[in-house]
């Protein structure tokens, strides 16, 4: 195993281990997403056709709100005892620290999202079984986009006062293209329309977004964290 990969996995394992010991971010994200799902039933008629037409959008709203809670913790976790200094002075690239943290966030978010998806299906009688794998693919891609942007900005805002306010202010506008693609794709898939035709374009947007920002984050993370 290359040293880069080993460092990345060590960081990811560390983050997951301390997260699962307290489950702070996980519980907060999960309960928050369930609450939003319940609140939606008051905003829309949960049994109507209209519900099907906007299901993808609703789902991604839940995901993106829930993600802010756990992404905020990502680098803030390192502030507690000046742990970030110890990580940065260790003989590992900053990109490995970033990627490790991103992987841990990704894993947590996926876990929250799968649970939220099940709750969503339960509450709103949605039929995604027919297109389950494509939906999971879209969730995997969309979540990676949210994770990369969120983790980068978590590192960027970690030393700022008003960190909790700054992160969503910066992250959500940046996520517009990814969320737009993920919402369109998910809505179509939930309505039983398979991937193909115009939708492949959205898959390209989503993949391109993930690719471009993973690259940019890896290049710029050293400037963000060290200077």
């Amino acid at each position, binding site marked *: 195993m290359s*040293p880069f990969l*080993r*460092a990345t996995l*060590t*960081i990811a394992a*560390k983050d997951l*281990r*301390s997260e699962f*010991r*307290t489950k702070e971010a996980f519980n907060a994200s999960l309960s928050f997403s369930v609450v939003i799902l319940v609140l939606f039933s008051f905003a829309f008629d949960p049994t109507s056709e209209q519900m099907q037409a906007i299901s993808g959008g609703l789902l991604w709203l839940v995901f993106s709100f829930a993600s802010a809670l756990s992404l905020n913790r990502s680098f803030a976790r390192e502030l*507690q*005892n*000046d*742990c970030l*200094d*110890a*990580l*940065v*002075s*260790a*003989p*590992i*690239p900053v990109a490995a620290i970033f990627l490790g943290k991103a992987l841990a966030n990704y894993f947590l978010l996926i876990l929250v999202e799968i649970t939220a998806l099940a709750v969503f299906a339960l509450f709103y009688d949605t039929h995604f079984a027919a297109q389950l794998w494509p939906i999971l693919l879209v969730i995997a891609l969309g979540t990676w986009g949210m994770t990369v942007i969120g983790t980068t900005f978590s590192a960027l805002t970690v030393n700022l006062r008003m960190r909790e306010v700054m992160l969503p202010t910066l992250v959500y506008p940046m996520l517009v293209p990814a969320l737009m693609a993920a919402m369109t794709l998910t809505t179509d898939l939930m309505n039983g329309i398979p991937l193909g035709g115009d939708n492949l374009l959205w898959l390209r947007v989503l993949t391109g977004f993930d690719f471009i920002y993973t690259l940019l984050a890896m290049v710029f993370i050293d400037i963000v964290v*060290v*200077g």
Partner: protein
Amino acid sequence: MTSPPAQYQLHPAALDIDGVYKYYGSFPALRDIRLKITAGSTVALLGRNGAGKTTLLKIIAGLSKPSEGSVRIGGHEVREQATRAKIGVLGHGISVYDELSALENLIIFAKLYGLPDPEKSALAWLERTGLDRVRDGLVREFSRGMRQRLAVARAFLHEPELLLMDEPFTALDDRAIAVLQELLADAHATGRTIVMSTHQLREALELATDVVLIQRGQIAHAGPRMQEMVDDTGWLYRTYGEN
């Protein structure tokens, strides 16, 4: 035309700070710091709060970049990974994770430093710092002194050649001070280089071989430790017009 004779430096300085400036906006926090530190010396970095000690230590540790100038450790750039493996940093914070156990903390850092047997090194250092009996306890539940000893173990874990410490004695309890002093004496005896900033003049001067005084971001004094300093800890400050 003959070219001038090449300059050979067979033993690069353990730490070579060359013309380092650090600006915060237009404000120079450090000005033209030049310092060559030979291997095996123990340097006490003195100066008032805000003089630039922490800034300088952070630059040496590679946690922040100088605006101008360079820092070389054993002839290599700080941000090279191989160089960082040789540095041990002990900052203001304890830099260990509250939700993890003492052993888990040390194993993580042993892995990050690429040590061959992370668990063995971690256990060895828990024993040296007297934490072996609580190795599975969460750091959150530790007393202040135990946390500090763990922080010391984390900084020494990979047997660094250069130790950088920011106010290491501040806020330590007696046992932690004893542990740290013993480890520092041991590190000095085995030829390691130590740079520490400090307010605790007596503890620092007992260990130091050299003294550097920083005033307003500049080096005001740099030289070997003298007996006057140990006998009268205010001597240096008075000599350079501080009180």
